[in-house]
């Protein structure tokens, strides 16, 4: 058993280690920037997630000029695109329309939104005059700004993993705790069930659960159900490990003490045994966030997760399934790189935390 003092010094150790490790530090900064921009997405994004200009489907990213036509340095400005149909090649081309310059403005007025969901506001971080269009990362098939949608989609992609964990961990802890503490037939039965769930390839189970969702749901309902489904995939493996830990914890004296003063079984499990697994739970949580981000993106990529018109990084990549898009419209791939960067950052931080909390690796590290 660890004393409180030990736990505190351990926490300090985690932070010190995170600050010392160059990779982990960079990862922390990257994640901070990502979450910060997602929090202020309404303000940073030039457009809202549903703003669409039907004449501008698949427009390439706006070119931003800082040197004007006379070869002199100028404030950054951009031109709008003109849509032209090339009858010979049978395709739509976007040409730069040089008739009108649009200077980039800081804090221009744009669509109305609620700052942090509370304060009504219409200023955006950056933008151009209302007649012009600023597409930092081009547009998608409906003429929606990819950059803005990445910010709004990130809100879903980067939080869904955490939410799933908050559903999954109580279930896994309680299941594993009961199974381990009661032992005997209860244990055998509960563990056989968990093993059976684990024996179904997780991705198969995931897509089947997602596919049987009724289609007439609001986007909030769908989001919550996807969270629950993600949680249903992971609890079994987690419960098994918790059960193993409970088996060894329940033989200790403080559990016998609690039993002798007549504490109920559930109370012993929740109040006395499960708190002992905290450090494992923290490690397991940080290490499994990325896998849920990946699972959500995969599900949405297949069209079974978050649905249009809502954005998530996975469903934005759905358009990248077509050859034409991946060859001629590479800006549609940006969400993929963001998933990669986010998952990589979580992994690097998770590695460092494990190094600190896992006593074995700490022995080697010193």
């Amino acid at each position, binding site marked *: 058993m660890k004393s409180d003092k030990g736990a505190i010094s351990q926490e300090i150790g985690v932070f010190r280690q995170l600050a010392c490790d160059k*990779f982990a530090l960079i990862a922390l900064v990257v994640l901070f920037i990502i979450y910060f921009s997602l929090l202020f997405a309404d303000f940073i994004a030039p457009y809202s997630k549903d703003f669409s200009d039907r004449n501008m489907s698949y427009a390439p990213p706006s070119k931003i000029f800082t040197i004007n036509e006379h070869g002199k340095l100028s404030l950054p400005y951009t031109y709008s695109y003109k849509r032209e149909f090339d009858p010979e090649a049978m395709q739509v081309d976007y040409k730069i329309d040089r008739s009108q310059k649009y200077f980039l403005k800081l804090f221009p007025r744009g669509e109305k939104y609620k700052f942090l969901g509370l304060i009504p506001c219409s200023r955006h971080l950056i933008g151009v005059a209302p007649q012009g269009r600023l597409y930092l990362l081009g547009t998608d098939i409906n003429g929606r700004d990819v950059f803005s949608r990445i910010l709004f989609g990130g809100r879903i992609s980067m939080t869904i993993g955490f939410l799933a964990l908050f559903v999954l961990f109580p279930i896994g802890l309680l299941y594993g705790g009961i199974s381990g503490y009661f032992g005997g037939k209860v244990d055998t039965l509960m563990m*056989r*069930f968990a*093993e*059976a*769930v684990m*024996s*179904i*390839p*997780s*991705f*198969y*189970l995931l*897509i*089947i*659960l997602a*596919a*049987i969702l*009724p289609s007439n749901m609001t986007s909030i309902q769908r989001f919550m159900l996807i969270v629950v489904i993600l949680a249903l995939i992971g609890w079994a493996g987690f419960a098994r490990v918790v059960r193993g830990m409970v088996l060894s914890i329940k033989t200790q004296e403080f559990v016998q003490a609690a039993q002798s003063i007549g504490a109920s079984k559930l109370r012993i499990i929740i109040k006395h045994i499960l708190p002992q697994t905290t450090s494992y739970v923290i490690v397991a949580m940080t290490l499994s966030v*990325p896998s849920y981000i*990946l699972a959500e*993106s*995969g599900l949405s*990529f*297949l*069209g*079974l997760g978050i649905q249009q018109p809502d954005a998530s990084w996975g469903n934005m*990549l759905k358009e*990248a*399934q077509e*050859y034409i898009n*991946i*060859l001629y419209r590479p800006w549609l*791939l940006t969400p*993929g790189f963001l*998933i*990669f*960067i986010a*998952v*990589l950052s979580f*992994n*690097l931080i998770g*590695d460092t935390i494990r190094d600190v909390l896992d006593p*074995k690796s700490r*022995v*080697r590290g010193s």
Partner: protein
Amino acid sequence: MQMLIYILKRILQTIPLLILVSLISFFIIRLSPVDPLAELKLNPSISKETLQKETERLGLDKPIYVQYFLWAKAFVKGDLGICSTGESVAGKLKERIPNTLLLTTLVIFLTWIVGIPLGILAAIRWKTPLDRILTVLTSIGMAIPSFFFAILLLIFAVKTGWFPVGGLTSYNFNDMNFSSKIWDITHHLILPTTVLFTISLAGLQRQMRANLLDVLDSDYVRFARAKGLSEFKVLYKHALRNAINPMITLLGFEFASLLSGAALTEYVFQYPGLGRLILEAVLKSDINLVMASLMTGAIMLILGNLIADILLIFTDPRIRVKG
């Protein structure tokens, strides 16, 4: 003899597991609001009699537990029903399972050949620049979403024209002679294998490194060194044998995660495997096909674990004594 009993016991244990798996999948699918015959009813080439026969076979007019027993009886007999196109499910599975097995075994083989030595190397050169570089590379490998990596490789294939995009065979496969048939399949396999290989290599290398580091820290290795054995002997005769055992247990899990990971990769590359089959079945809500491929996936997974356990008996004498 003892070993045989152990293996037999282990095989018998999988039966209740399979029954539980079938119960779980059956109730998940049947309790959903989807009509199991909706697709069949929409297909004009399916006759009324066939529909009637399917309704009777599935017992759709009877209570759900009766339906389960009817389904289970038919499943054991190998009668899996028909899918929404009217083909037999069993035939479809027979066509797809070898392809998925080919892909996954190839990937496991390659990851072991490359991952184990790299893990050993990283453990021996622990905390040197080489170890650091390998750690960074594996972090990158673990972070790429499989479908995104597959898309990037597709771009590469389309731009260079070096690799065929999609499928397992070319359109003129049947006219080829034996050697060019093999070359054709290999050519199609390169890209999907690369994706799955990159993703599963990282985990394997890390596990091997961690295991070997653990073992190298133990008393018997210290004793072997103190005895004056050469480093080579310490490593390959004492440490490695113990470090490899947990890897064999991992083999079963690796197989499981590969089955899952392969689904998305198969989807992007249009590879005719089990993963893509179940995906198409799910999207079309083709219940017979979903149920059958779910069970097939589970059986393959359980078999993978079983094989790993049996292999472990041969490599780890402790189990033999206990068993």
